[in-house]
């Protein structure tokens, strides 16, 4: 998959979460996503960005605009060096939360994208990658 362009954004504060939503919205439009596709990608990004800030104690998001043949896609990787997720299966369960949220962040974001990947280990941080094709 050739990368058309990419960049990294910092995720340290609540304001950064809002910034990520706005950047992802522009990129999704550039990829030719429909309004519903844009909204799904922006919402998934917002959930994961909040996880990075709240649970990961801050980190970065790498965005990449990809092409495969005529298809365009947007890949986002949320990376933190926080405590990691001890029980991934539990964390991906609807309604389970460690932080007073609704417990829909990870599982919900997964439903909103085409590809979802998560790498984590206790003490080793977390990397969540999502991809959505036009």
């Amino acid at each position, binding site marked *: 998959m050739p990368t058309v362009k990419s960049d990294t954004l910092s995720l340290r504060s*609540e*304001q950064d*979460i*809002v*910034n990520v*939503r*706005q950047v992802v*919205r522009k990129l999704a439009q550039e990829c030719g996503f429909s*309004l*519903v596709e*844009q*909204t*799904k990608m*922006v*919402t998934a990004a*917002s*959930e994961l960005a*909040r996880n990075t800030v709240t649970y990961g104690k801050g980190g970065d998001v790498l965005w990449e605009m990809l092409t495969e043949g005529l298809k365009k896609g947007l890949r986002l990787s949320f990376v933190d060096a926080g405590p990691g997720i001890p029980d991934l299966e539990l964390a991906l369960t*609807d309604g389970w939360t460690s932080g007073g*949220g*609704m417990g*829909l*962040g990870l*599982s*919900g*974001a997964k*439903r*909103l994208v085409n590809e979802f990947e998560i790498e984590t280990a206790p003490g080793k941080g977390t990397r969540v990658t999502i991809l959505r094709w036009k």
Partner: protein
Amino acid sequence: MSMGNVERIAILRMGPFLLVTIQVDMHDQLALTLQDDLTAKIEKTGAKGVLIDISALDMVDSFIGRMIGNISSMSRILDAHTVVVGMKPAVAITLVELGITLAGVRTALTVERGMNILRAAIADQTDQLEADDADREE
């Protein structure tokens, strides 16, 4: 929208109702402040209804969804009805897929319909109170 540094969302009073129009991409603290301000204002004014216009919101994630649900539950406990109006179809589709159904939250497509729901809810309540009083007098 680059108005993320707005620190408060205005709450307008119109007769027995409070009106809130969310026109900025809210950061989390702003959403929490709105929740606090609104409940405080219901208590202070004795408002009977709250109308929240989200027609300018391009996205509602689980945090904002939870805030909307909370406001609705809190106002109910404070004896006020809440109607959320103007949700965009793309937002509704995404919310449900995310797993948020906003159960128990009254919604309407437009401000006008939302106001009608609030007026009707208050009228029902008044009728009920009058009926109760009449029963007692008999």
